[in-house]
C-alpha cells in the first residue's frame, strides 16, 4: 500500500532528478510546477466531465428515471458528446452587450476555480503548494467569482442577466461571512491555517463530530457559494431563466459550466478537508479516500438539488444575516472558550459536543419558531 501511496511523489522526484541533470535548478522547479498545474487542470476537466454525467445520472435515479443512456453503453460517452457540441456551437454576442465585459467574464470566472486546487491536499503528500495561509487563500479566491458574475450579468445587456448578476453578488457577499466564521472555528480547533495541518489535526475524530454546527454552516454556505439548489437564485431556471449566463453560448457558456462544476467539486473537497478528515482513512491509499469522500459529498449536493425548492432572494439574505452569522459567531465563541481552557482531549471533545448541541439546538429551535407552519389556521 505504501507503494501505491507514494507513486505520484516518486514519479515527480524521478522526473525532477532527470531534469536536474542538464537544467538549472530554478528552471526545473518552474517546469515541475507547470507539470503539476497542467495535471490539476487536466484532472479538473476530467472531473467536470464525470460530474456532468454523474449529476444527470443521479438526478435521474432520484426521479425514477435512467438518466442519459443513448451515447455509448450506459451513456458513458455523453460528456464527450456534450463537450464536442459546445465546442462547435456558434458563439453569439448580443448586439447590446458590452463586448469587453462579455468576453472577459467567462475567463475571469474560470481562473479562480482552477486556482483553488493549488492548496487542496489530495493525499498525504499530494498537495501542489502547502501554504500556511491556505484557508485565507481559498476564501479570497471564492470572492473573485462574484466579480465575474456581475461582469457577465451587466455585460450581457439583458435584463434577466442583470437580475441574475444582482442576485449573485448579494448572495455571494452575504454567504462569505458565515463561511469564513465557520472556517475560523475549525482553524481555532486545529490551531493552524494550513490545510495539511488541519487534516492532520483530525485524528482520531474528524471535525464533523467535534464541530457539527460549523460543518452545517459551512456546508450551507458552500451550497450557496456554488449557486447550487436550493440557493441557485442567480441562475434560477424558472424565474430568470438562466440568470447571468443567459446570453452565453458555445465555449463561453462552457466556461461558466466548467467553473460551476469545479467550484462544486472544490467546495466538496473543502468540506472533506476541513470536516471529514481529508485524505485520512484505513487500508486504501490516501488520495482514493479523498476522492471517495468527495464523491459522497457531491452526491449529497445532487440529492439536495433533486429535493428542495428554491428560496427567495430576501429570505436568502435574511437566512444568512439573521441566522447563519449569529449562529456562526456563537459557535466561534464556544469553540474559542473550549480551546482556551486547554483541557485533555476526552473532556475537550465532550465540551465541544455539549457546546455545539446547545448552540445548534437553540438556533434550529428559534428558526423553527419563525418559520410559517403547516397548521391550517
Amino acid at each position: 500500500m505504501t507503494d501505491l501511496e507514494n507513486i505520484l511523489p516518486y514519479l515527480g522526484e524521478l522526473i525532477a532528478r532527470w531534469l536536474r541533470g542538464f537544467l538549472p535548478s530554478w528552471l526545473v522547479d518552474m517546469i515541475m510546477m507547470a507539470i503539476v498545474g497542467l495535471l490539476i487542470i487536466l484532472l479538473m476537466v476530467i472531473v467536470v466531465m464525470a460530474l456532468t454525467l454523474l449529476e444527470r445520472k443521479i438526478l435521474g435515479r432520484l426521479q425514477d428515471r435512467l438518466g442519459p443512456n443513448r451515447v455509448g453503453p450506459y451513456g458513458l460517452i455523453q460528456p464527450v458528446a456534450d463537450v464536442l457540441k459546445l465546442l462547435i456551437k456558434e458563439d453569439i454576442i448580443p448586439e447590446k452587450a458590452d463586448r469587453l465585459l462579455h468576453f472577459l467574464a467567462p475567463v475571469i470566472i474560470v481562473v479562480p476555480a482552477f486556482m483553488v486546487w493549488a492548496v487542496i491536499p489530495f493525499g498525504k503528500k499530494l498537495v501542489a503548494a502547502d501554504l500556511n495561509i491556505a484557508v485565507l487563500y481559498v476564501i479570497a479566491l471564492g470572492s473573485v467569482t462574484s466579480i465575474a458574475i456581475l461582469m457577465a450579468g451587466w455585460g450581457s445587456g439583458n435584463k434577466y442577466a442583470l437580475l441574475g448578476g444582482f442576485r449573485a453578488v448579494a448572495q455571494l457577499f452575504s454567504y462569505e461571512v458565515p463561511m469564513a466564521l465557520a472556517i475560523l472555528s475549525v482553524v481555532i480547533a486545529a490551531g493552524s491555517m494550513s490545510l495539511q495541518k488541519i487534516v492532520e489535526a483530525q485524528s482520531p475524530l474528524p471535525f464533523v463530530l467535534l464541530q457539527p454546527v460549523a460543518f452545517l454552516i459551512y456546508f450551507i454556505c458552500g451550497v450557496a457559494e456554488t449557486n447550487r439548489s436550493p440557493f441557485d437564485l442567480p441562475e434560477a431556471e424558472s424565474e430568470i431563466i438562466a440568470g447571468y449566463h443567459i446570453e452565453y453560448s458555445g465555449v463561453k457558456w462552457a466556461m461558466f459550466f466548467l467553473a460551476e462544476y469545479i467550484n462544486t467539486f472544490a467546495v466538496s473537497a473543502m468540506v472533506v478537508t476541513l470536516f471529514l478528515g481529508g485524505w485520512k482513512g484505513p487500508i486504501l491509499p490516501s488520495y482514493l479516500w479523498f476522492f471517495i469522500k468527495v464523491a459522497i459529498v457531491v452526491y449529497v449536493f445532487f440529492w439536495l438539488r433533486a429535493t428542495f425548492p428554491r428560496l427567495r432572494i430576501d429570505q436568502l439574505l435574511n437566512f444568512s444575516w439573521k441566522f447563519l452569522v449569529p449562529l456562526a459567531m456563537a459557535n466561534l465563541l464556544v469553540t474559542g472558550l473550549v480551546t482556551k481552557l486547554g483541557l485533555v482531549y476526552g473532556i475537550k471533545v465532550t465540551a465541544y459536543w455539549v457546546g455545539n448541541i446547545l448552540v445548534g439546538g437553540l438556533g434550529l429551535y428559534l428558526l423553527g419558531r419563525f418559520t410559517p407552519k403547516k397548521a391550517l389556521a
Partner: protein
Amino acid sequence: MAVALKTQEIVLNMGPQHPSTHGVFRMVLTLEGETIVDLKPVYGYLHRGIEKLSEGRSYLQAVPITDRLDYMCAMTNEFAYAVAVEKLAGIKPPERAEYIRVIMAEFTRILNHMMAIGFLFNDLGAYFTPVLYAFRAREHILDLFEWASGSRMMPNYIRPGGVAGDLPEGFIPQAKKLVAHLWKFADELDTFLSENEIFLQRARGVGVLPPEVAIAYGVTGPVLRASGVKYDVRRAEPYSVYDRFDFEIPTLPNGDVYDRYMLRLLEWKQSLRILEQALDQIPDGPVSEKVPRRLRPPKGEVYGRIEAPKGELGFYLVSDGSDKPYRFKIRPTSFVNLGVLREITIGHKVADVVIILGSIDITMGEVDR
C-alpha cells in the same frame, strides 16, 4: 424601510418563451429592483379560434375540438360539452354512462391536481422531482383512459348522449387498484412537500387572494375554495349523478399559495372517495342514448356547466335549429381565473410571480382557445 431608495423601473418581458409561464403566456412586468409595480398579461399566442371552428361543425364533430381546450384534462371538457348539448337537446344519458363520466372526470381531476402541484414545485425550483413523480402516477391514469377510449390525452370518449363505448373488461378492478395507489401517492406527496420549510417560507402569505376579490373576479375552482368560499358546481348545481355521492367540499381560510397547494391535495382525496363509491356502485346497462349523428337540437340557447378541475367550465350554446351550433361560447376557467393575476401579484418579487401563476394553474389552450 424608512427611506425608500428610488430606483429606475425596468420593464421585463416574461414570456411567451419562458420556462414557467405554463405555455405561451406573456406577462409584461414593471419592476422596481425585484419588486413588481405593474403587470400586464398578454394573450393570444395560442389562439386557434376554437369557437369559430366549432360553429362550422356539427355537434358531434365539435367533441374532438373540445379535447384541445384544456389539453391536461380533456375528459372534463367533453363532459361539460356533453352536459350543455344534452341540456339543449333534452337528452338524458343512461345511468351507466353517467357513472363512467364521473369516474373519468374524477380521475381527470386527480391528474390535473397532481400535475398542478408538480409544476408549482417546478416553478419553485425543485428541479422536476415532484413533476416526475406526478407524471408517473399520471401515466397510470392515462393508461386507463387509453384502455377505455383508445387515446391518452385526446380521448373523444364522452359524447352527447353517453360515452363512445362501454368500459373494457377488467377496467374496474384495475381502476380500484389505481385508486388504492393514488391514496398512497397523495400521502407520499404530503410527506415529501407539505412540511418542507423552504416551501412554507416561499408559499405562506404569498399571493393572498381575499374571498371578496375572488368572487368579484369570478374566480372558481381550487383557487376560490382556498380563499374560504365554499362554492363547487358539483354541490351548488348538481349535474350528472354527483348528488348520489358522499363527499365534502374542502375549503381553506388563507388564500395564499400554500393553501392553494394544500387544497388541491385535499380535493384529490375527496375525488378518491367519489371514485371508490362510483366504482362500487356502477350499474350495468347501456352506455349511450340513441343520438342521431347529425343532431338537430330545437331552437334556443343554453348554458351547461360542470366543475372542471380548474374551476367552473361551461359551454354556452345557441342553436338555430340546424345541425351546427349558431354560437359556441366557451366559459374558459383558466382565462377567467387569470384575470385576478394582476391583483394578487403587485408588490411581490419576481420569484413570487411565477409561483402565484403556478398556483392559479392555467392551461394556455383554454386561455387563448
